[in-house]
């Protein structure tokens, strides 16, 4: 009997909803509610949009100045420095193994990265 009663109420609710959807007209209440819902949606979408931007933000590049002692070194000394570091840390690997095509400043940065 309980299920029968729920079925009846559900059927009546479906009929009421169908009639309202097809024949109903906006009211002052419904228009006010629609504005409230829209403000809520705009707020929520803006929050989700900001979260997306933060999640996919470009990598933050920080500029730092090169240590003065490295700036004072010539290319030969820089290469020798890196080779020494490689001897001390055999597991150390570089994308540029020959170091031929690497600029002097990049060599300095590599040293800083190894030692950091």
């Amino acid at each position, binding site marked *: 009997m309980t299920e029968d009663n729920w*079925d009846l109420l559900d059927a*009546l*609710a479906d009929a009421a909803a169908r*009639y309202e959807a097809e*024949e*109903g007209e906006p009211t002052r209440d*419904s228009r006010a*509610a629609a504005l409230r819902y829209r403000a809520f949606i705009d707020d929520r979408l803006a929050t*989700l949009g900001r979260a997306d931007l933060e999640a996919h933000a470009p990598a933050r590049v920080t500029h730092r100045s090169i240590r003065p002692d490295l700036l004072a070194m010539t290319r030969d000394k820089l290469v020798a420095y890196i080779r020494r570091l490689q001897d001390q840390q055999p597991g150390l690997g570089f994308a540029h193994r020959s170091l031929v095509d690497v600029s002097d400043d990049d060599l300095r940065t590599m040293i800083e990265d190894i030692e950091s």
Partner: protein
Amino acid sequence: MTSEPTLRARFDAEATPALLDKLQRVARARVRVYAGRTHHVGESDADDIVMSCLADTMDGALHWDPAKKALESHLLDAIRFRVRDLARKRLRELRQVDARDEEAAAVPADDRARELGRLVTEVVVSLEERIGDDRDVALLLDAMVRHRALERAEILKETRMSKAAYRNARRRLDRMLLQLPVDLRRAP
């Protein structure tokens, strides 16, 4: 959980003022049927349910596939199920007003079934007051309530009405459903 930006863009485009207006009216129409005079559900519940359906769809907690369903259809379905679930939940959670502790406060299943029966009676009496001497609508409601004929074919068989008479009576009954009282009386 969050939904995809493209899905949210579709949501944004389809959530027009006209649709949002309709959602509110349909949710209230549904709530009115379950409300009864003992306030199992009320009009503020209708607003909460619409809001929760909107929020959950935007967040991705309520799955929406735009390729399969328009936003309107998706939200109307979601509202339908949430109003039904809330009405059942409220009845399950009925508490005896004068009970001293939580265990004693739980309403026995038989009493909950009686309460549901009372809700149905309230809805039917309220409709009968509006039907007056409209014989076809009275026949239609009688078929639904006494014979539990809820589908069109069952009602036609039970009432022996013509299809045209049924269609007209159905529209009049459905209109009366929108006039069901809500918030008339507070729960005791």
